[in-house]
């Protein structure tokens, strides 16, 4: 059982649930107390010790039965059981009309035989189940195995069989009954396959090595990341954002104990007969404002998702953040982030603003901004542009950009492109750079967080 639990924990980790060593130790301790006999108590002990996040509950609920259910196979019924001898003979005769392989499959369905473990393994091998390590592929794999079983042909053949039997004189209700039973058996096989696929994927997940080398990922350019890497990075972003948050909270707290506030101190100490027992300080809380404009066009698409998660994190950090995204025009995306999970909010933005080819227009977007949102920029604002400044040879509207930069406290440009490419082709980076206080290359997540950290410390 311990072995099984360890595998289960590994699979949960692979499924994206963060489980520390302390937590798995708790799980074992809890199971020691509760025992494993009562399944529900066992399940609840694991759930309360391992999962600490409401979002992770569904993956727990999906994986648990795959690891700890005693493999209850879906029930199947033997149709041939209560057939009269004539009927059975009719069936045998009709079956002879089909090819060997089809017949075997049809008999299975009629007799209610489940696929053997060996057959399942073979099927799994055929469709590449052994390489799958993501639950999202479960139904797809099950469908592929159905296809490998040539289920469509079997279904067709069964229809023919029914016709044959009808011609041979089998009674109508009998046929109807058979049809229903066969359908139920088909359903059961389908379930068996889905169960098998789920279990196998769960096993694969548990064998996977735990996430390693996040450092290496941090230094890999955004363009060279797979879906899976992105997943891990997204998690890393939120972790980094948390870290940033506590640093900023600390900084703000320290800033608070700044100058002595004589008036408030006198007032507060009247009750002590004017002896200054409580010292009051001027509230020095930094109240930075942020305006972020993020390019999510095709050329930036591979990193815009991460950039947006960072924008999301920033929004959490600095209450007065206004976030915008643009491709050919500008949209205000702060409302999307309110009250939503980062992932949902980001996909909502990305779906609403689908990329086209070569339609980036930064100049026009700046114009949008200047017309509608200029009042968000003032002397307390830090203005952050995120993008590669590739403008499709449109007018870069440097006039607007310089005007905006002048209005704010600081202007920072984050560019994922290496500096040697700036100014080549349709890149207007060098020209924009003249108006920025800081231009930061951030092609990897490591650089990106460094940039953000630098940015918040300096503000």
């Amino acid at each position: 059982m311990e072995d099984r639990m360890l595998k289960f924990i590994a699979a949960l980790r692979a499924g994206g649930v963060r489980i520390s060593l302390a937590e798995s130790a708790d799980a074992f301790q809890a199971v020691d107390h509760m025992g494993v006999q009562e399944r529900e108590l066992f399940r609840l002990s694991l759930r309360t010790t391992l999962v600490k996040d409401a979002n992770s509950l569904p993956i727990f609920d999906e994986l648990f039965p795959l690891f700890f259910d005693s493999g209850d196979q879906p029930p199947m019924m033997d149709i041939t059981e209560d057939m009269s001898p004539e009927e059975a003979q009719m069936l045998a005769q009709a079956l002879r009309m089909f090819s060997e392989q089809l017949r075997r499959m049809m008999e299975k369905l009629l007799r209610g035989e489940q696929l053997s473990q060996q057959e399942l393994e073979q099927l799994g091998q055929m469709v590449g189940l052994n390489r799958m390590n993501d639950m999202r592929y479960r139904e797809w794999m099950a469908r592929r195995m159905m296809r490998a079983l040539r289920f469509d042909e079997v279904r067709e053949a069964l229809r023919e069989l029914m016709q044959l039997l009808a011609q041979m004189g089998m009674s109508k209700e009998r046929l109807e009954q058979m049809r229903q039973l066969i359908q139920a058996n088909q359903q059961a096989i389908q379930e068996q396959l889905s169960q098998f696929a789920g279990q196998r994927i769960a096993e694969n997940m548990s064998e996977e090595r735990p996430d390693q080398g996040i450092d290496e990922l941090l230094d890999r350019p955004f363009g060279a990341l797979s879906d899976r890497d992105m997943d891990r990075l997204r998690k890393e972003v939120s972790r980094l954002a948390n870290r940033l948050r506590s640093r900023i909270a600390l900084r703000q707290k320290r800033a608070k104990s700044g100058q002595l506030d004589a008036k408030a101190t006198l007032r507060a100490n009247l009750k002590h007969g004017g002896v200054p027992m409580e010292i009051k300080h001027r509230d020095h809380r930094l109240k930075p404002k942020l305006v972020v404009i993020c390019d999510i066009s095709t050329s930036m698409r591979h990193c815009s998702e991460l950039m947006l998660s960072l924008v999301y994190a920033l929004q959490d950090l600095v209450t007065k953040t206004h976030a915008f995204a643009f491709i050919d025009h500008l949209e205000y995306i702060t409302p999307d982030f309110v009250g939503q999970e980062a992932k949902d909010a980001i996909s909502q933005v990305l779906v609403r603003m689908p990329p086209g080819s070569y339609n980036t227009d930064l100049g026009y977007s700046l114009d949008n901004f200047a017309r509608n949102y200029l009042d968000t920029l003032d002397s307390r604002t830090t203005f952050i542009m995120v993008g590669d400044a590739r403008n499709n040879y449109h007018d870069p509207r440097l006039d607007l950009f310089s005007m905006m930069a002048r209005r704010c406290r600081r202007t920072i440009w984050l560019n994922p492109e290496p500096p040697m490419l700036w100014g080549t082709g349709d890149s207007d980076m060098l020209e924009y750079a003249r108006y920025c206080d800081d231009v930061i290359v951030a092609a990897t997540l490591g650089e990106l967080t460094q940039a953000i950290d630098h940015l918040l410390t300096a503000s």
Partner: protein
Amino acid sequence: MTNNRVYTSPRAVKEALGEQQYIASDEIATTVYLCQQLGKPLLTEGPAGVGKTELAKAIAGATGRELIRLQCYEGLDETKALYEWEYAKQLLYTQLLRDKLQETLANTHSLAEAADRLAAEEDVFFSMRFLLQRPLLKAILSEKPTVLLIDEIDRADAEFEAFLLEVLSDFQVSVPELGTLAAVHRPLVVLTSNNTRELSEALKRRCLYLFIGYPSLEQELAVVRLKVPELSPKLARQAVELVQRLRDLDLRKSPSISETLDWARSLVALNAKQLDEETLETTLNVLLKHESDLQKVRRRMQVSSRGVDIEDDDLSQFRWRD
């Protein structure tokens, strides 16, 4: 003794909570039982008004412990959560005890000697006498076992959370003037969160986790029957069914159990016999707290002799299925 009662199985926990008028699901009972067994704090999350705080109260009632509550808010710091010196009282005492002080210092010959004597007496002023205990210290120093409820931890700042980690793992506090104060009895700790902000991994790691969602129809009905027994069974069922339907809509604030209970009580107070249009019109604001939600529900609601029907909210249906 009723103090510090220990339960031997989740079932016993469930019954004990039931006696406190708290209907606990198997999940809740098991988690509470495990917290007691493993000596870990309980972190409970879920939408507002599903009974997280109530649970802490029920645990206190069931174990016969005193409930000490710390309500978190932005800007909460150690002085408000842990302890503070009572400067004013100290000052007052120095003034009242002036004669005594003069007596003590009377036959000193040098300033240094006087200072030394004063220093020897200083302990008087930095003793428990002048220590203003805030909830955390109270829970630690209490002679009797307690239940410590740290309510809405997600509202406190991240730094406070970090400070809490130390207290929660060792149950001891160091007061520079007094030394380390360790817990006499480990309190049972319940933390609640509405998930307005992500809590730190470190905090989660130290706790057992319990997500309390909206109850099922039967559970909620049981709660209503228990807490508002005057409401007729038929009406109670209708009311709970309606509330459950409302939760499926895409509302700004879904009605919670506490609102269901308020509503049930209003129905009793109004002596309602059935959910007709007039009753709904006058009482719906007990359930819904936003004008836009009220309008939305009124638009979609159809009251007929069969009961109340609410049109499906296409968008929310889609979202739920997704």
